């Protein structure tokens, strides 16, 4: 694992992606810091960090897109996957290397609260909570980005899909007001979700009958539930979509509320991303 970690870290600086990511992050967060805190005298880092989330559109794809797609394109995955190293260690090595590069500008950002100490009341705890939220959200995104990269052979496609994912998860909270909360919409939404899940089952297992059983079961449950207890369904669309809602979890967290569920939200995304990457690599072996 350390071998992969070190090699990955080194190649991220020889091929510029690491340097670009760090530069972009420092530039954007530095400007935000200058604008909100130094110029307009905001006493906490809350606004700075929240608005800096913009950099994820660039930094996440730049750091994660190459991780596995490039290996596959250059056929170097043949070295990794035939070496006496388990998939978990390969994936973790790569993931930790990406996270390390991402952590460098975050560490630099950790000096901002210290600078602010010189002009006023201390909000250190809040500021560092903000930065922690920022860091964990980045880790969650990087993990998903790595998974997306492991699904394709083209870093460009990986980058585009990753940007779409960041966009969806950032914008979701602003479209919640537009989603109807009625039980009928929820039922239709959940049924559509069942179709998606069964499709996913079919793609993962190649088992037609199994996916049909899954579809029939979930679909029947949705419709039966709607007929019997429609009240259970109202507002469910939103609660399901909350799974993808990074920005609300982030702003709660960055608002100074160090709530375990928010922390767990990002950590579980990171863990699921790593596990799915392992699955994706393993599945390619069998396909």
């Amino acid at each position: 694992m350390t071998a992969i970690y070190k090699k990955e870290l080194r190649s991220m600086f020889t091929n510029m992606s690491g340097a670009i990511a760090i530069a972009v992050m420092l530039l954007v967060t530095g400007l935000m810091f200058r604008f909100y805190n130094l110029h307009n005298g905001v006493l906490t880092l809350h606004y700075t960090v929240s608005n800096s989330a913009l950099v994820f559109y660039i930094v996440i794809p730049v750091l994660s897109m190459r991780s596995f797609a490039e290996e596959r394109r250059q056929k170097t995955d043949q070295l990794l996957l035939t070496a006496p190293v388990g998939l978990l260690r390969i994936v973790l090595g790569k993931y930790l290397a990406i996270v390390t590069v991402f952590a460098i500008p975050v560490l630099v950002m950790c000096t901002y609260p210290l600078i602010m100490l010189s002009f006023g009341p201390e909000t250190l705890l809040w500021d560092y909570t903000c930065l922690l939220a920022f860091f964990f959200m980045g880790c969650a995104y990087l993990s998903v980005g790595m998974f997306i990269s492991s699904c394709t052979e083209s870093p460009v496609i990986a980058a585009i899909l990753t940007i779409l994912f960041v966009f969806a998860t950032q914008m979701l909270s602003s479209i919640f007001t537009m989603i109807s909360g009625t039980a009928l919409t929820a039922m239709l939404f959940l049924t559509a979700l069942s179709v998606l899940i069964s499709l996913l089952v079919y793609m993962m297992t190649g088992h037609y009958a199994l996916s049909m059983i899954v579809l029939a079961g979930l679909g029947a449950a949705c419709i039966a539930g709607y007929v019997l207890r429609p009240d259970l369904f109202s507002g469910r669309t939103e609660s399901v979509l909350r799974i993808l809602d990074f920005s609300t979890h982030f702003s709660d967290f960055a608002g100074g509320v160090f709530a375990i569920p928010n922390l767990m939200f990002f950590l579980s995304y990171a863990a699921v991303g790593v596990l799915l990457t392992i699955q994706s690599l393993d599945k390619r072996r069998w396909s």
Partner: protein
Amino acid sequence: MIQVRHLTKLYGDFAAVKDISFEIEDGTICGFLGPNGAGKSTTLNILTGYTAPTEGEVLIDGRDILKEAEEARRSTGFLPEIPPVYPDLTVYEYLSFAAQLKGIKKREREEEVRFRMEQLNLTEVKDRLIRNLSKGFRQRVGFAGALLGDPGVLILDEPMAGLDPKQILETRELIRSLKNDHTVILSSHILSEVSEICDRVLIISEGEIVAADTPEHLESASGAGTVLCITASGSLDRVLSAVRTVTEVREDNVTESESGVQVRVRLRDGEDLRLRLSEALFAAGCPILEMKQEKADLENIFLMLTDETGSGNSLQEDGAGSGSSQEETGGGSGQEETGAQKAAAADRGEERP
């Protein structure tokens, strides 16, 4: 020792490899031959655990490549068709990385990398980025990577591709020198490479093994033997009847062209009919324009086994009508195939414990 049992690999409905089984003993260099797309790389990828078979199993030194993956892979060195080198690393960095991946301890790592670089003449380029190296050098870097840690089993997918003649000679020598304490399987579609260094040859065509034997056995047991090729002037009937007074010959082995009638006579071992045939033909008023003996080499056997319709068949020469020539090879290949398959079966039977 490599044991392969009933390997099948399906890509969708397409069977890239169909139920193949073979064993390769320790200390053997085995050539894995086949035309492009025959399933060579697929099979080798399965042997290394890079791809998993749809059915069947692979044992490296008795360990299953998927179930006991780490142990089995530790004793395997793999050089894929495209060397798996990172362009943004230098040769030295790449080899140290590969050595770490193979779990070579820090103390021995430097020594091992240095030794492999010397072995493959890479020392002079050790600090250059792989990006800037030629295909031949990359191939050697990949080869050095496969040799790191001295694995007992080496799986080389087209190790000579992209090398210049001198490098081919060196690589061949290197592979030969590995023979004593390694099991080597190397794929190729160039026969001269294989027949010179391999103890055994597996010929694969359309996902099936069509022959498995030593190069020498294949040459003699294939029944192709020596072919006497005679061109005589005169009508087809007269030439044919004159030849038939001496030996059996099938109609489809006789072709007529502008340059004369061409007859191909298969000779049994040690048989020499040249004198009797020339006398018979001369007596029948069909003077001989050309007579030559062709020895069926591995090249011909390979083409017969892998290329049933074989328009580019090397047996076809001297402007012979392509139609009849195709028939000839078609018929020939049927015989050869069964012969070689029998040989293959016998081979496997003997080796099975």
